[in-house]
């Protein structure tokens, strides 16, 4: 991942962006098409797309006269892996806390 995990989480910490990403995960869409599907202005959609693109979650695909966007699958798999790591870290820490508490 070329951006830090928190920045990716921050980019996703917004329901509209989450909606956009979910839709782009199903199929490539332009900002205008997204604006007709979501109760948000095209300008707002463009801002959200820029935020998602900045952390590498979506990419722009020129298609004729319009620009479509698609979700980057590898990026999301990587994110799922990182989340797993966070949980695994706590499993390890809790196991160590258990060892410490049980020797009292």
């Amino acid at each position, binding site marked *: *991942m070329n*951006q*830090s*995990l*928190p*920045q990716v*989480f*921050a*980019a*996703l*910490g*917004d*329901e509209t962006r*989450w909606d956009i*990403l*979910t839709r782009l*995960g*199903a199929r490539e869409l332009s900002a205008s098409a997204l604006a007709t599907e979501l109760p948000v202005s095209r300008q707002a959609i463009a801002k959200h797309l820029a*935020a998602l693109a*900045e*952390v590498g979650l979506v990419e722009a695909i020129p298609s004729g006269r319009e620009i479509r966007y698609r*979700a980057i*699958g590898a990026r*999301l*798999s990587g*994110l*799922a892996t*990182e*989340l797993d*790591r*966070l*949980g*695994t*870290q*706590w*499993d*390890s*820490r*809790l*196991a*160590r*806390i*258990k*060892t*410490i*508490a*049980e020797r*009292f």
Partner: protein
Amino acid sequence: MIVADLQSLGCMSELNVTRTVHINAHRSAVWAAITEPELISEWFGDTAELDLRVGGAGVMGWSEWGNFRFVVEEIDEPNAFAFRWARDTDADPVKGNSTLVRFVLDDQDGGTRLTVLETGWEEFEGDVATGMKENSAGWIAELDELVAFLDKQDSA
């Protein structure tokens, strides 16, 4: 595939990491393990300092990654303990650069059930220009490897 990944992640705006362990010890022993600096340094960091009061400051140090500051947010002995932990070295933890870690202790089968909940990822500043270091994911990964290594040593 992408849709499956999204579903496995759930909604980020409610992102948290939670884990539970059963400990064959009284709650007071578990309380000591998670709040006494000399014991904290056995499971979290190489060194730990802590002013155990709400608003009290603490520092966890890793020889390899530096010092990370935290601040106590809740003390309810022996039921709950929470602290906010900066994910940048030598930075005071505030919303936007830190996560909140909350431990809850319950009696369970003559021992203690310890639950940890880490939240606040979604509060991180999304703008790279805020000066957030980009190595967080890196050191998280490295730390994970270290813990796995140490655990292997322990069980060997």
